[in-house]
């Protein structure tokens, strides 16, 4: 409408059909292909299998040496911290009746405590001990789902019978 008064626009309309459009499509396709390549090779080189402890123990021999993430609960009383440097620690996680010993060097999250839901990332050694390079323990904002009566008991909060609402 108004825009067609511009000489450039008229010129563009006269130009061979869709030349610009074709250029754009080519550049857009190039960008998309480059991105797809980045995503594809990124996936291939960095993907990590995510298992629970029992799943790992079922295929222990196949998994030795592959990068893994393993989820389980910390067996109470198994967290041991080295007295030499306070950074080497060992603990055992369990799930589905299976257990997995873990060694980790580094600063563990504050949330790594007895019974915490832990996710360890690293490799399973030939000796069956998991060498973790990263340790996650359940994030604070996700505590709620298992809130129940027992949790209050465990936390040592005094409970009185409810008499009225």
């Amino acid at each position: 409408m108004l825009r067609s008064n511009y000489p450039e626009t008229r010129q563009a309309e006269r130009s061979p059909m869709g030349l610009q459009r074709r250029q754009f499509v080519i550049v857009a396709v190039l960008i998309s292909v480059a991105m797809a390549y980045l995503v594809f090779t990124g996936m291939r080189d960095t993907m990590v299998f995510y298992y629970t402890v029992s799943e790992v123990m079922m295929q222990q021999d196949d998994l030795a040496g592959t990068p893994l993430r393993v989820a389980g609960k910390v067996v109470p009383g198994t967290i041991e911290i080295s007295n030499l440097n306070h950074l080497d620690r060992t603990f055992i996680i369990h799930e589905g009746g299976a257990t997995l010993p873990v060694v980790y060097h580094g600063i563990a999250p504050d949330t790594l405590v007895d019974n915490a839901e832990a996710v360890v990332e690293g490799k399973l050694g030939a000796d069956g001990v998991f060498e973790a390079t990263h340790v996650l323990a359940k994030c604070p904002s996700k505590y709620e789902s298992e809130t129940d009566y027992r949790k209050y008991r465990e936390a040592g909060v005094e409970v009185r019978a409810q008499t009225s609402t």
Partner: protein
Amino acid sequence: MIALGHISLIAALAVAGYAVLASLIGVWRQQPALVGSARNAVYATSALVVTATFSLLWLLANDRFEVRFVADNSRIDQPFVYKMSALWSGMAGSLLLWTVVLCLYSSLAAWSNRGRHHALMPYVYAVCMFTTMFFVAVQLFAADPFEMLPFAPQDGLGMNPLLQNPAMAIHPPNLYLGFVGFTIPFAFAIAALASGRLDTSWLHAIRRWTIISWFFLSIGVTLGAQWAYVELGWGGYWGWDPVENASFMPWLLATAYLHSVMIEEKKQMLRVWNMLLIIATFTFCIFGTFLTRSGIVSSVHAFTVSNLGPMFAGFLALMLALGLGLVAWRLPQLKSAGQIESLLSRESSFLFNNLILVVACFAILWGTMFPVLSEAINGVKITVGPPFFNRVTVPIFLALLALTGVGPLIAWRRASWPSLRRAFRWPGLTGLATGVLVAVMATTSPFTLISMGLSAFVVATVIQEFWRGARARAESHGENLAQAVVGLTMRNKRRYGGYVIHVGIVFMAVGITGSSVFQREVEATLRPGETVDIGDYRLQYEEMHDFTTQGVGVVSTSVIAFRGDQPVFRLVPQRHFHPGQENPTTEVAIWSSLQHDLYLVLAGWDPSQTATFKVYLNPLVKWIWIGGAVLALGTAICMIPDRRRSVTGMANY
């Protein structure tokens, strides 16, 4: 109060339902009285949800632990501020906060547009109130903030100590002010599509809403990073956690929209694209809320936890279907009036910036959701972590950084080579020189050189723009340069505010590059008096002592940093034993300068006073926070109402 809160929510569901029906019937049967009644119902819904929110705050303030939410998130000796911020430290309360913000926004939109946009507003009411209904329903049926415990504990479990931090107290509300804000543009988009009023009036109506939402979203994301940095103690600020990605993805889409909408306003192009961006941004905001609150990605078997997942999935599917269906229906009316004339034009640089932002968003989505996808497809959960995200996003963001510099310099419609040479000469040389300088000073990867070079390039483009504009104005208006800069900015706030935002982004890019490429770390187990070296610093461990303050047990160590022989500062990393928490929390000590941060963590100790420290030297981190502040300033400039229509302009909010 429990009953009041509960009843308010139930009533809000009913009244919001009435608002949806009344506005839709009102517009279809052309009964303005019914639409007016729907508007009043919007106000009434807000009043009810505000009542429910105050009820929950009152319950928190008065330690009513028979309410599960209060017992879970508060305790008697929790500081009052954190009793209040407990509102958003759990899922049910967060959803209530979401709802109340949405209601207040809806009311503001209804009130400020009264007497205007008659064809659009009924649909806007309907979409806002339908979304409100959904969130209220989620609370009533899946995550009830007023749920009672079968007994009344004497004290609550308390808020997680990690969340008791000033940044964390204001980070979620900021994020939600942003997330929720995009509901209004979405509602207007649906209204424009449904009513067929597809001219630019709806775009003007949402201009402020998008920029304000983007403002809060940006601040929210930055504060989240800052919280992670000072509180989590692993030396970094961004871990590509699903929760972080959830807030970042809508930000990318909204950023794309803020650019492409300029082309629509100017040339009536990209109209379908902009519709899709708004619909997608809203969808990602809802999805992000769900992701941050459900733990679907991080936990091993998440879908079974609650009926929250199906409810959100259903709502998302419905909103997407509605949006895409309407776009498809209106496709003939959404034809572009103009076309892009040249590959060398600002339009095309915006187009590519859009493409890259959207692809970045979907690459991050892909990485975030891959565990869930792979489990659904072949039963094996496969995850990708920071290495994947860094690999994919670093080249993407470098390309974006380049376009940040190119966009403002390249002419609209069609740029000529001589004009490009003139525009790019100085910025290009500055960038090149900076790249060379970095290469000479530090042996590093090509990515770092490119990043630093591009950063300098972008800053140079901005300076050149201000300089040229201000010099011309100073001559024509007889002002000095400083006056001219202010006058220039005030005359075209969106343009020059945008440039300031670009500078903020560059500061952040510099900080991110510096801290991720040049970070150094050492670990040391020391007896009092022993030292450890990092960079130019020698850290001497002085002593350790423990004490109790406000019910919190503190183990405190004191470390003196020397540069050469001079003691320059003291760091006090601690561990805090919060009551009711099994493990001590890490209290990092950070000494921050423009050059670098010294970040010290107390990793462990034993009774002989031997302590283990982890020390990080993080270069340029402070520039990230400065960049965030500059970005906020730039956005604020964009938000200043125009003086000549200040009366109606205010009402535009």
